């Protein structure tokens, strides 16, 4: 029936569904650009989860106690899981999984800029959980209401698991902040290094964000980058105060009128440099991912060959 409808009519009906908060499911008609936007966003989100395992993997063997080690392992395993939910969601849109992964490895696809910073001390495991996962939650909670069903469902699952990540991180930072002067110093140094990159996680400011307007109309996105960034600052500043750490921003000030914090200018040059591949660890991260795929190739092939062989035996 709908083959007879014009593109304009199909687009109109599509937007009416979106406006009525009816979710779009994989086989429903959708504009090409909606599909493309989602494939780009979901696969980048998946890549971020997978690359995000690397800075933390760096500390698994050096966790200070068995408890911390077990927790960190569980967190990194969750991240692998999150990547898998998301790659599956991208596949429902017709994206080829191996191609999306190859796009990451060739540098064509992006991932969150934050994972291009190094994890120099144990305190960074705390700060990443507290700030990086905190910022991720802020971004992901509204995505649970995204108009595309499989993405929204994946996000519900991710958000449930993410709050454990933030709490374990905050626990690490709190313990260090209450520890010896050296431990507190370590926590403060870590906050100093991660604060600004965490603010950059929300993406370019609204004025420079090329995708925001259309994504909001399609209800892929529910809040602008600047709104979410402000919410994050407002929530996080009192948390830092409570554990006696200082946010590294001399311009940070409570604005009574706005009932919100004013904060300093983000270094967008740094952000753009990291996005373009010139951050401290970009090359290392991609190299590690490429090696993982290459070195695991024989295992994947062997598993498939084994499965084929067993199928043949059964058939006899």
């Amino acid at each position, binding site marked *: 029936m709908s083959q007879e409808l014009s593109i304009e009519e199909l687009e109109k009906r599509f937007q009416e569904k979106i406006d009525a908060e009816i979710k779009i499911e994989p086989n429903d008609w959708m504009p090409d650009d909606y599909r493309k936007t989602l494939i780009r966003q979901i696969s980048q989100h998946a890549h971020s989860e997978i690359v995000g395992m690397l800075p933390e993997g760096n500390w698994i063997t050096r966790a200070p106690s068995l408890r911390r080690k077990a927790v960190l392992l569980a967190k990194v395993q969750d991240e692998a899981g999150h990547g*898998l939910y998301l790659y599956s969601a991208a596949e429902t849109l017709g994206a080829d999984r191996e191609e999306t992964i190859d796009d990451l490895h060739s540098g064509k696809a992006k991932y969150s800029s934050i994972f291009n910073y190094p994890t120099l001390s144990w305190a960074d495991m705390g700060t990443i959980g507290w700030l990086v996962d905190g910022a991720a939650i802020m971004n992901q909670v509204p995505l649970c209401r995204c108009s595309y069903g499989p993405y929204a469902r994946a996000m519900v699952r991710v958000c449930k698991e993410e709050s454990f990540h933030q709490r374990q991180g905050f626990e690490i930072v709190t313990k260090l902040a209450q520890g010896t002067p050296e431990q507190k110093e370590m926590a403060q140094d870590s906050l100093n290094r991660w604060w600004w990159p965490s603010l950059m996680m929300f993406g370019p400011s609204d004025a420079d964000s090329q995708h925001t307007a259309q994504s909001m109309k399609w209800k892929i996105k529910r809040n602008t980058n600047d709104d979410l960034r402000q919410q994050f600052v407002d929530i996080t500043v009192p948390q830092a105060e409570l554990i006696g750490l200082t946010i590294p921003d001399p311009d940070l000030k409570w604005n009574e009128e706005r009932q919100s914090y004013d904060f300093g200018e983000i270094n967008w040059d740094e952000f753009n440099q990291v996005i373009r591949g010139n951050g401290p660890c970009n090359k290392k991260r991609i190299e590690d991912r490429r090696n993982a795929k290459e070195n695991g190739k024989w295992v994947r092939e062997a598993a498939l060959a084994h499965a084929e062989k067993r199928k043949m035996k059964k058939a006899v």
Partner: protein
Amino acid sequence: MSQAEWPLFEVFIRSKNGLNHKHVGSLRAADEEMAIQNARDVYTRRSEGVSIWVVQSSLITASDPQDADALFEPADSKIYRHPTFYDVPDGISHM
């Protein structure tokens, strides 16, 4: 690119006895056995299930959203199939 990808499986989880298996997502695995193991790791890390079904996605036949009107519209017009369609006099209980 690797020449052959592992097939895609759909995963269904029974969260506890007494409830249906419910679709939770998909994953790739070399065979059914590995699909069950992977589903355990990907979808039940926090005691979400007591039983897992996996089936190759390519074996599922789905209705076409374009046929939704033809398939489901007839049910919309048969409101007499619902108890609320009928008048029950005041004072009648247990009905």
